[in-house]
């Protein structure tokens, strides 16, 4: 059930690499743990993310969590649909619920992330 083509961080973010760009989001496990997501503080386009540093906040009805960048890079797009429909992160975390797309500044960082198997073990699935 974990997409095989993604890389994962221990903080439950995923990365989909496409050329020099990468799309990032949070995993289904993270979305389920948070419960009904009600708000996402998105980064600004043009902002620079550093790997494992916080770049935003996600809120559910009864919890709040920082978002940690799984890779470094410049934000080239954010998912504006989440502003009105944050529930997309619950209903389709690996697809419509994506958060931001970045231009990867150090592809070498990707090697330090987990594959689906290792992440699956981490969350005990």
């Amino acid at each position, binding site marked *: 059930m974990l997409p095989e083509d993604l890389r994962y961080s221990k903080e439950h973010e995923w990365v989909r690499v496409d050329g020099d760009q990468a799309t990032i989001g949070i995993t289904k496990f993270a979305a389920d743990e948070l419960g009904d997501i*009600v*708000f996402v503080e998105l980064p600004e386009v043009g902002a620079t993310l550093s790997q494992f540093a916080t770049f935003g906040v996600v*809120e*559910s*009805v*009864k*919890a*709040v969590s920082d978002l940690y960048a799984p890779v470094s890079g410049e934000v080239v797009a954010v998912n504006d649909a989440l502003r009105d429909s944050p529930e997309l992160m619950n209903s389709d975390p690996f697809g419509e619920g994506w958060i931001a797309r970045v231009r990867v500044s150090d592809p070498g960082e990707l090697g330090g992330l987990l594959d689906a198997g290792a992440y699956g073990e981490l969350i005990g699935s």
Partner: protein
Amino acid sequence: MAYTPHTDADHARMLGAIGVASIEDLFADIPPAVRATRFALPAPMAEQEVRGELSRIAARNAVPRVSFLGAGAYRHLVPAVVEEVIGRSEFATAYTPYQPEVSQGTLQSIYEFQSLICELTGMEVASASHYDGATAAAEAALMACRLTRRDRIAISSAVHPQVRAVIRTYCSGPGIEVIEVPADLAEGGSGLTPVEAAASVLTDEVACLVAQQPNFFGGIEPMAELAEAAHAVGAQLVAHVEPTSLAVLAAPGDHGADIVTAEGQPLGIPLSYGGPYVGLMAARMASVRQMPGRLVGATRDAQGRRGYVLTLQAREQHIRREKAASNICTNQALCALAATAYLSAVGPQGLREVAELSMAQTRHTATALEEAGLAERRFGAPYFAEVAMRVPHAARRHAELAAQGIVAGYVLERDYPELGDTLLLAATELTSDEEIASLVEALEATR
């Protein structure tokens, strides 16, 4: 002991169930080294005794027979129906509405409160309440700092001295610098905040300008221009207002205010030596996530029934802990209910009458003192329902009148050394012509 129902038999049964020999055993975990060595409280009192004791103390207060004292707390009519509403124990003895299914009364009344405060202030969102007007203003200043990511605020010296003091205390926490904008208090001055003086301290490092409408001296500030000056540098305008004045004065939201705060006491809350009152706060919807305090929102249950819940709670301390917008938890809910009932009871017409009667009797007071040659207005600007009057030997005469049960307003020199011999006088709809006459007469006698 009066309120614990347990009989000896109850005690025995509970101790037996727990499996301990005595109540002492339940306190064995307190280290002997730190057990209380004394507890020298007075003997218990029966109801008739405690009524007597409290009546004795209450009688030590000499409630003035005539009072022109306002300065942020006003003697207005508290309609009997408002007392009846807040006296209902279903409201008074409920906790914070954490279980919405059995708290719809509290929740809906807060939603109505938020709606009324938005309507009165011309703002988009109002919080469920703050401790008082001053702490609301202080929280607003901190909120402006979060919104603008700046750490300096400016405040007019014509803001209530106690409000300024509380803002200074709150700002000392995170180390926010407070710059004071001197009001025009010169001889023949307006008593207002000069727009140029505000503009001269407003830089792109200042998060907000805090101004009061009507200001501490009752004067009508140029709020729209002050807002413009603040906005010119990307700062917010925090408008600290008096709620009954909003029946006649422009809604601060229409004059560019970004955050509005107020002391809600005039809305049906007794003076009660300073509390409990209720702090009001309203803001723009775009700022809601930085807003401190509880918010109630409307939603539905599975059967389509409309209901109300505490919402956007991720701003609050019980979820966000050290990253919360504020540490506020308990607020002033029952006082907010009083304000809700009050505004509903007086309606738009009644609130206007309160404002206009208060204005009329304040003007009556000023004119009567001027005509008797006892006082003259200290400032030139138009005022709402409070007026600063120059009265020779103000402090002495204020004390002499107090001894006769007449409080001739507030001695401004206490907070403004440059305003010697100046009294701040407020009248309300409860002020009678006879009371004004007795003030004039008593001042005459101390000439």
